């Protein structure tokens, strides 16, 4: 008596994250089998994880270079988060959808999105230039955590349609303080929407560390409040990330509802190319974090398993270099489009919004052309 009526019929203890983050690979590449988190990948797929991570790191570095060369206005590096992004996205099927924040080049690479097209936002030629419907990869979302609601709504739509797809919303530790991820997880829980909320806890929201972001025991514990399971994994362990995400994705696809995953990782680079981390964290901390490099660990694992030799390693490096070059070619000195395009995409049916303003810009452009030719 006196107790409030529970909203669901779920025992909250079954939703709790494990006492320790799921971890399958030691830093020296030793693999520990975990019957709760099987890795159901064949040799080619295991190599593909490596390929995606190496390509991601290469294009990420190249994007930083492009910014330094004045080709991009800004860029948000994911250095150190390759395993979290690639492992998570690799657990999705082709029909599934990804709703990224602005730091998801690794997820884009895994989905097969043209990396060069992802950079138009940062160059400022346009606000995006890939087709979201081609690889089921939504636009980068800069306002923090807002894409979580789009992922939830999309998943609700799929559920209404009995379409067995899953959506995945990527966001960061900082975003868990925002209202939109909270509302997204509330909706997803109520509607049992097939959506996986994937938090890359990279420890830093620009300069604010996690302990100033939340007093929650872990971010994964927040899941219990929404009636969904909370998963916690070593985000620098690509196999753990994959296996945990796979479990959540399979469960969502089966109709059992959403899940929250917290992947522990570290943002080894600055927040963006405009940021200076030396003002808020120590070199020593960064050096410590670098010892948990996700690619080093996975490469040791593949070598131990006999899945990667020097030749293949070189082949992957060459492929990554080629992709970085291709990306550079797409974006290097890419011009902006026709300024009149500013009016083209605002509405499907422009019912007279721009009649007069179009004329103004056209006149200004004609005057400029006159000046150029004079």
């Amino acid at each position, binding site marked *: 008596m006196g107790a409030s009526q529970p909203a669901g019929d779920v025992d909250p203890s079954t939703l709790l994250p494990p006492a320790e983050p799921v971890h399958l690979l030691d830093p020296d590449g030793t693999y520990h089998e975990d019957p709760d988190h099987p890795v159901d990948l064949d040799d080619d797929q295991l190599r593909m994880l490596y390929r995606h991570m190496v390509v991601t790191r290469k294009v990420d570095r190249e994007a930083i270079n492009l910014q330094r060369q004045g080709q991009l206005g800004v860029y948000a590096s994911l250095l150190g988060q390759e395993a979290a992004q690639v492992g998570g996205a690799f657990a999705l099927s082709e029909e599934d959808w990804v709703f990224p924040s602005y730091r998801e080049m690794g997820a884009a690479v895994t989905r097969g999105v043209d990396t060069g097209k992802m950079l138009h936002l940062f160059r400022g030629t346009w606000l995006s230039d890939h087709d979201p419907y081609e690889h089921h990869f939504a636009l980068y979302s800069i*306002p923090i955590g807002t894409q979580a609601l789009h992922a*939830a*709504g999309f998943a609700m739509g799929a559920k209404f349609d009995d379409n067995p797809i899953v959506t995945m919303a990527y966001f960061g530790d900082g975003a868990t303080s925002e*209202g*939109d991820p909270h509302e*997204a997880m509330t*909706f997803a829980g109520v509607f049992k929407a097939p959506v996986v909320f994937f938090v890359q806890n990279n420890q830093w929201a620009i300069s604010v560390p996690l302990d100033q972001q939340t007093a929650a025991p872990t971010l994964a514990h927040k899941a219990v409040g929404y009636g969904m399971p909370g998963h916690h994994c070593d985000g620098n362990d690509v196999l753990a990330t994959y296996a945990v995400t796979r479990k959540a994705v399979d469960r969502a696809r089966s109709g059992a509802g959403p899940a929250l995953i917290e992947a522990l990782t570290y943002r080894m680079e600055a927040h963006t190319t405009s940021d200076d981390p030396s003002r808020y964290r120590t070199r020593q901390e960064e050096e410590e974090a670098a010892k948990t490099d996700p690619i080093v660990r996975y490469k040791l694992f593949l070598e131990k398993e006999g899945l990667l030799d020097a030749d293949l390693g070189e082949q992957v490096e060459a492929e990554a270099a080629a992709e970085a070059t291709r990306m550079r070619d797409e974006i290097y000195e890419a011009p902006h489009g026709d300024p009149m395009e500013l009016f083209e995409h605002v509405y499907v049916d422009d019912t007279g919004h721009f009649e007069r303003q179009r004329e103004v810009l056209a006149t200004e452009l004609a005057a400029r052309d006159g000046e150029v030719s004079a």
Partner: protein
Amino acid sequence: MTVTLAQAINRGIHDAMEADDRVLMFGEDVGKLGGVFRVTDTLQETFGTDRVYDTPLAESGIIGTAIGLAMYGFRPVAEMQFDGFAYPAFEQFTSHLAKMRNRSRGRVKLPVTVRIPFGGGIGAVEHHSESPETYWAHTAGLKVVSPGTVADGYAMTRAAIAADDPVIVLEPKRRYWMKDDLELPVTTEPLHKAVVRRPGTDVTVVAYGPMLKTAMEAADAAEEEGWSLEVVDLRSLSPIDTDTLVASLQRTGRMVVVHEAAQSLGPAAEIAARMQQEAFYHLEAPILRATGYDTPYPPAMLEEFWLPDVDRILDRVEEALDY
């Protein structure tokens, strides 16, 4: 048949849902209860809980999931329960609903309709009588309309739901119980076209939504003074039908713009700017405004002093005529 504005809108949603099974209706209390104003009454019974559903009490969630549903391929109709409660969704409105098509270079369209009961005059408690139309109309990528007649309640609802762009329909809540004939099928002007509701020769009075009825009453009262008012129902705030306004101003030479929303930087300011630019030599007087004051919406017992009424409109009309 004679119906209320609320019933006409209800019928509009019903017919849109019947015509297209991708149309969904959702919001707070819109299901079993039928909405706090009963605008969605019986829709859940008719179309089921998968197409007409109550959401958690979270406005950003309502608009954000509407965006996801539209990306998926549905045609969501979302309700904000009251004007003043749409603000938690402001970021989803302005950063995503309005911009997604432009950001995606035309690749993603969001055929979302958002219905918002707006405006005052019902003696409501704080936050239930706001006129936030400028926020939405000032945001590129949104279309904003407001029906002022029973027939438009039906027709504009249908047109908004049929549109491939996000449309905000501001429903004049004080007029929900206003009755008129509704003969289906309704044919009205296109969604974004202003309409002359009453021809006149001396002064053009421009109004929309809740103030249309007030403007029509002012025109009746003006007759006793010997003034002939032309009443233009603006209907759409984004875009604004400049041509219809200019044509009317060319006939009368004088214009008073009416809205409940606060005066400064309100719709009337934009209309005045356009009129002086497009019809300067037709002006016999400055464009005048009969609007709410630049204060927060007042407590219920003071709203009659705050809201524009027939007297305030006629005062401005007289000023214009005396100029």
